[in-house]
């Protein structure tokens, strides 16, 4: 990468006569190239860019004002237009296409911890009943949490469990797989793989006793749920 462009160009290289080629170390870029440069700068900038900044960023001897005129012509009538904002310049989508931007108006919120945990349990244990989710989380699952996940279409109702009370089960949806970039829920890594990938802390257990059998510390009734 050739960083630092032409800061070495001697400042004296700007002659009075604008028609004469500059006697600097580097020739002045042709107007079409100046247009390209301004196009890139305005596109990538987070704010409108003023004339002074353009002049400072372009190589010595460029004429941003003229290049902007050309650029403005080029974009006239396009889906994107060059607009003047105060003393600066920026690209904006054409006002007549504003209706196209509707899909972009979304407010992103992070999912609550309860929701993400519930979702994780459904993904790993599906089909899973509400009682099983509560058993794994150790707290009651609020109606709102399940509703939210259902509304997001990340989980849906599965088959009823053929046990007393015939409770409904939950499974994840294709929209879930799509959102999380999974081909199937079976592709989720197991506990051992999570640990190997560094996603799990290997903190020593408190209490000191060399308790090697993981089943020992599992409360009764959960071991079946935790089968990988």
């Amino acid at each position, binding site marked *: 990468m050739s960083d630092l462009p032409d800061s070495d160009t001697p400042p004296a290289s700007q002659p009075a006569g604008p028609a004469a080629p500059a006697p600097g170390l580097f020739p002045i870029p042709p107007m079409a190239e100046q247009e390209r440069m301004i196009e890139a700068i305005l596109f990538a900038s987070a704010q409108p860019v003023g004339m002074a900044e353009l002049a400072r960023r372009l190589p010595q001897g460029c004429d941003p004002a003229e290049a902007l005129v050309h650029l403005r012509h080029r974009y006239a009538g396009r889906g994107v237009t060059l607009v003047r904002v105060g003393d600066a310049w920026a690209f904006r989508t054409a006002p007549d296409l504003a209706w196209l931007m509707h899909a972009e108006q979304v407010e992103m919120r992070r999912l609550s911890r309860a929701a993400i945990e519930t979702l994780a349990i459904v993904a790993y244990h599906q089909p899973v009943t509400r009682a099983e989710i509560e058993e794994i989380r150790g707290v009651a699952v609020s109606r709102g949490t399940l509703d939210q996940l259902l509304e997001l279409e990340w989980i849906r109702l599965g088959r009823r469990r053929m046990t007393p009370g015939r409770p409904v089960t939950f499974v994840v949806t294709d929209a879930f797989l799509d959102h999380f970039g999974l081909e199937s829920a079976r592709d989720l890594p197991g506990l051992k793989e*999570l640990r190997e990938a560094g996603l799990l802390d290997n903190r020593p257990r408190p209490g000191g006793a060399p308790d090697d059998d993981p089943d020992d510390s599992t409360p009764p009734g959960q071991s079946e749920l935790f089968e990988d």
Partner: protein
Amino acid sequence: MTAEQMQDNPAGAPASASRLAPPDPAQRLAEEALIVDVDGFEGPLDLLLTLARRQKVDLRRIPILQLAEQYLHFVEAARALRIELAADYLVMAAWLAYLKSRLLLPPDPADDGPSAEDMAAHLAFQLERLEAMRESAARLMARDRLGRDFHARGAPELVTVSRHMRYSASLLDLMQAYARLRTRDEFRPYAFDRTDVFSLEQALDRLRSLIGAQVGWAELAQCLPPGWRVPGPRRRSALASTFAASLELAKQGQLELRQSDPFAPVSLRPRDRKGSA
């Protein structure tokens, strides 16, 4: 192992690995530098690759025997300098010593395992493949990159006309949440619902008191405390602990046990201390 931070230059050998074939004293210096830098290597394969590269030959034609000798020499030199090498370096040394002996000896016709040549060829393949991946990584990192060489729109337009909420969560969030849940159980203090557990201590106390008054054989199941006899988890717990207690007392010589057939009821009676003494 100390992770050597090498930005954008994964193919670069550690600084000490001179690519030139140096004259003897310089070579020795270079070898010592190699050893000092052993932490900078990512395992035996990395070290082997560095040694191979110093031979300045096509990796596909690398003389494996020579390479094995260089590696063994390296390990010996490290030992002479009392540098502790990680075990995997020694495992590789042992394997290369074995390979070397196999390459030098005439093939044993009785041996139907892989030939020494196959093993050597596979090692050469591994080295070539690692080298190729390093070169590819370097080429990848040298590409024009987003945010450095080319750029996305700096001011994305999110016109707010109609607003609706969307919730986001990443796969990492999901997996970490699950990992958190699963490990929380490992850290949960051990707590057990004791109302349905008849402990060994309780069973021992009960049996000791029972056998004082007992004459003749009694079935184990009859020794269960009241309230623990209805089939179910309570009965299972009481039966298990009473049985364990009876074994303990039998071992202490306080009672005798009897069972006529497998799965038949177990009976017990107090041991006649005078008779058996």
